[in-house]
């Protein structure tokens, strides 16, 4: 996983609540067996018309947002299916940070594990940041994970909260499995106890 420290880039406003993972990446595009290549299908039902041509009204089809690295949306972002293809599609498109008032649990987890930073900020702040984002290419936002602030184009800094363990893993691009395997002795002894206490596990 790529580490996330500081990101300065173009932010795309998506003033919508309940952006679900079926919108982020529709199910018909889930058939790949690799982690990459989903970017072209990101928000496919909004980005493309029925005939496959681009819908010019959708923000990610407009300049400069075609190069957006940050997405700003409203409540309950990422609700719905557990598909990790959602952060993969965001990442493959180039988006490494989503800012919203809150996130659905599974998406929130999945994002961290793929180096996409979900930043929770109150709705009024998201609205302000969307205003900034609407200014286009000259109004870049900075997301500084080290200092836990979002820097507006005006220079104003907005602090955000984040789980310390998640922050640590993301800052260092660390993989959870390696971390967990340090607990192998504890897992072994748990399994030994379980085998004695619950012999029915594992099916008849």
């Amino acid at each position, binding site marked *: 996983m790529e580490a996330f420290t500081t990101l300065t880039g173009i932010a795309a406003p998506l003033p919508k609540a309940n952006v679900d993972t079926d919108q982020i990446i529709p199910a018909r595009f889930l058939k790949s067996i*690799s982690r990459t290549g989903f970017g072209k299908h990101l928000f496919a039902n909004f980005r493309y018309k029925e005939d496959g041509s681009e819908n010019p009204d959708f923000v990610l089809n407009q300049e400069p947002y075609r190069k957006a690295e940050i997405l700003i949306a409203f409540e309950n972002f990422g609700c719905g*299916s*557990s598909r*990790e293809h959602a952060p993969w599609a965001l990442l493959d498109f180039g988006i490494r940070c989503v800012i919203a008032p809150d996130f659905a649990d*599974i998406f929130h987890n*999945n994002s961290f594990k793929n180096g996409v930073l979900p930043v929770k900020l109150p709705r009024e702040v998201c609205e302000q940041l969307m205003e900034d984002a609407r200014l286009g290419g000259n109004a870049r936002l900075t997301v500084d994970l080290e200092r836990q602030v979002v820097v507006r184009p005006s220079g104003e800094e907005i602090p955000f909260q984040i789980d310390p363990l998640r922050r640590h893993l993301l800052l260092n691009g660390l993989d*959870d499995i390696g971390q967990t395997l340090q607990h192998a002795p504890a897992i072994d002894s748990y399994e030994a106890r379980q085998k004695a206490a*619950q012999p*029915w596990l594992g099916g008849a």
Partner: protein
Amino acid sequence: MSGQKPRTLFDKIWDAHVVDTLPDGTALLYIDLHLTHEVTTPQAFDGLRQAGRKLRRPDLTLGVIDHNIATDASRYTGIVDPESRLQVETLEKNAAEFGMPLIPLLDDRQGIVHVIGPELGRSLPGMTIVCGDSHTSTHGAMGALAFGIGTSEVEHVLATQTLLQKPAKNMKVEVNGNLAVGCTAKDIVLAIIGRIGTAGGTGHVIEYAGDAIRALDMAGRMTVCNMSIEGGARAGMVAPDETTFEYIRRTPNGPKGEALERALAWWRTLPTDPGAHFDKVVTLNAHEIVPQVTWGTSPEDVLPITGVVPNPEEAADEARRAQLRRMVEYMGLTPGQRLQDLKIDVAFIGSCTNSRIEDIRAAAAIARGRKVADGVRALVVPGSGLVKKQAEAEGLDRILTEAGFEWREAGCSMCLGMNPDKLTPGQRCASTSNRNFEGRQGPGGRTHLLSPAMAAAAAIAGHLADVRDFQPKGSV
């Protein structure tokens, strides 16, 4: 246990599975059963392979193919779609390489992952169960802690049989009283989501309680727990009781004999202690629930079948107004229109929400002696090969096909648009599945969520209909 703080069902299962606790309170949680399917695992096995890691507990892992396969006879001659075939073959290859048990596609036990776990007796009370699919909450009906995970977490469980988890908050949804005639578990859960909203359970595990939940059979409890995620909760659960134990006794792979006795002794200690703390409590009266149907593109946009399409302009704030306008437009509706006047093109009875034998019986009871309306395509897709066999033994397939329903092979089918069963743009579908998002059943498709009996009634009427107007007819 005297002197100990009263605990919820969730607390007890959680505590019993903590392997280790990290300094910040994150738990390393042991996973008793990991279910896998073709869509969310290829990248996880790839990760294992790259890191040279092994599958830690093949005996606690079980694979099945369900999401992207056809549900017509074509599965017997090979999968047509090349990408779907590649995903299925990849799962088969990975199962062989890592020693993971896999139910073959053409096996009677094949079916939707959330139908087969309980049915085979693999999903049991007190367990932690995960699967790369958000409707894993279904297994919570067994009195287990079951939740959906992403592919990175799938890889984590394959390698370590554990997950790093922060404890969730406890939420209780209590449904009291008797359900009215024509109402089912599906109407209960739709009513709950209508009440709490799609984010009402975020950060929580829901325990469903109250005598209306207790009165449900296991299939009904699974329907309710299944849609916990639509209410924002990662997991939903029902305390195990005699109904649960009786169900387990009839499963092929559940514990037997002495193992069962030991298991029962533990399972009986699991229900929430009196006085245990819930962070949030919601109460509903079952007798106030009327058959439910969703009208919009979010599961919380649900109404009694007697209702009318809402007027977006009456919503409280502009954001909500805009959202509702979009829904009305996408769904092809007019404010004030009666829901019962909405003509349908397709009726879909299936999905991990409603494809068990009880669901098929409910649909057949309405279909018996009647005919599907002209111009309506009606599909019944059993949740597993075993459900299909049972239904055929009871003659339900004949009742349904004589009425004009298609009788299919087991799979996810039209629940999500990733296999050949799809809506075409603009088609309106009465569906027993769990998500009505834009494009969920195919691009441009319009989904109305409802119970199996309501879906069968809609298929026959040709429009959304009130199941209470359909008295079951005797055998013809």
